[in-house]
């Protein structure tokens, strides 16, 4: 019978035979579904923007029939608890390592030295000098990363250094970069 429906769609049936199939179609629900499905397939193949079959009622009906889950499923198994613990430990480790790298960045800025520095370093390496060189004490927490320095910093640098060589001149590219992330509680 499905072949007949398909043939009817393609206009391959004689008038009388077509009338008979149409009469059956009116009575048989499953054949009507086949009819709709064949049209949908045809529309898809032709990439038609307007579908012959309205699928919205069907989707709505399906959505209504499906239960809505508002809370995640709570697993009580021991295995999953261990898994959560493992993840939290891993996350803490990652946070610690990140913070450590952050602090390294603050206290050990990478510097390039000119050739004569070798001499200077050897002079600096006397015990009294080395030990008395202070190290940073504070540990500003690393909460946020700010990529862009405030625009007026260039003006401030220009005024602070009073045009001295090495200063950024007004109009030149800003050579300012964030070194430590903001304090959680500073400011207001």
């Amino acid at each position, binding site marked *: 019978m499905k072949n007949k429906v398909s043939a009817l769609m393609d206009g391959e049936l004689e008038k009388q035979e077509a009338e008979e199939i149409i009469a059956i179609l009116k009575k048989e629900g499953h054949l009507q579904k086949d009819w709709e499905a064949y049209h949908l397939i045809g529309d898809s193949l032709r990439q038609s923007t307007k579908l012959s079959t309205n699928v919205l009622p069907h989707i709505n009906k399906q959505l209504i029939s499906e239960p809505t889950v508002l809370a995640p499923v709570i697993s009580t198994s021991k295995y999953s608890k261990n898994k959560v613990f493992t993840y939290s430990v891993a996350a803490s480790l990652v946070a610690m390592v990140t913070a450590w790298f952050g602090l390294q960045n603050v206290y050990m800025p990478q510097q390039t030295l000119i050739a004569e520095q070798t001499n200077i370093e050897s*002079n*600096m390496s006397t015990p009294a000098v080395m030990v008395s060189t202070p190290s940073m004490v504070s540990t500003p927490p690393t909460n946020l990363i700010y990529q862009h320095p405030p625009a007026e910093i260039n003006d401030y640098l220009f005024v602070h250094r009073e045009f*001295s060589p090495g200063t950024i001149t007004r109009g030149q590219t800003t050579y300012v970069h964030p070194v430590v992330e903001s304090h959680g509680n500073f400011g207001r």
Partner: protein
Amino acid sequence: MINNSASILLFQFKHRTLRQSVSRILLVLLLALSCILQSAHAENLSSSDEALGWLKKMAVAPRQHNYLGTFIYYADGHMETSHIAHLVGGKGEQEKIEVLDGMPRIVYRNNDKMKCYLPESKKIYTEKRWFRKFFPDLLPQPFGDIDENYHITMVDRERVAGYESQSVLLTPRDNLRYGHKFWIHVDTGLLLKAAVIEADEIIEQFAFAQLEVDAEISKDIFKPSKTMGATDWQTTNLMTMVLKEGELDWQIKALPAGFRKIIEMKRNLAGKPALVDHIALSDGLATVSIFIEPIAKYSTPTVPGFYSSRGAINIYVRVLEDHKITTVGEVPLEAIKQIGDSVFDQALESAAVN
């Protein structure tokens, strides 16, 4: 017999373990003690008179000698060459510094007055030189309590720019400042080379590549060329008002050890609708500026945080009572933060008390 041997072996084993433990504890204690002693040694040592004598000689030299030369600024892989002419006469000091790399910049100084010419943008910035010291004239005169903040030691004799120099090291006594090293011309006391040091690394450096001491310098060199300062040039006076001590609403609650306030003023920064408050501090070598300005209603949000610029410069931005407080200076972050955090509005505080 077997039991006795076993007991002896056990005793020897225990004794050895105990001895090892005691040795380890002693070693740790010794290390800790040596660290404490060495720290105390650095903090409390007084600088030698001879080393301080070299600094005194260095401080007065720019007021006694003419010089003509080329020096190099170096920091963070960036190098900049400048030409300097310095003349001492009956009317004081005259100086011309021309930056030879990148954007042209010529600075003329006549005692306190400074003018900076930017030929490319046809702009002139004028300013009274109130508080800054720059290479090779780095030390204030008198430099007073520098010994309280730095331990000064003589290091070596070295040849710099063709001259015999005495190198002197200034090691900070706390973590609020960087170290410095000066190479001082043995005959005249002129500074030939200067380095700013953090831990064991140089973070900023000035050095003469060529220098002529007590040179014959024509006064004409200090007159800007006729093309500079023509009618189409724009002049901006960066300084507007110098205030008395404590006159600004914004003050610093607790100055860090060794720092003192040099000046309070209101600045006229280009593009700013309101004047910007400016407080400058110094410990005799390092300078810190604090800029305070109201946050404009529709401006882009202020971004608090710590920033770093070329060389020894660190920056700290914070927000307080709808004002943006920016602390800038050639000091470690610890000092920048301490200074920035101690800024307060004295008018607001006294109103709260009343």
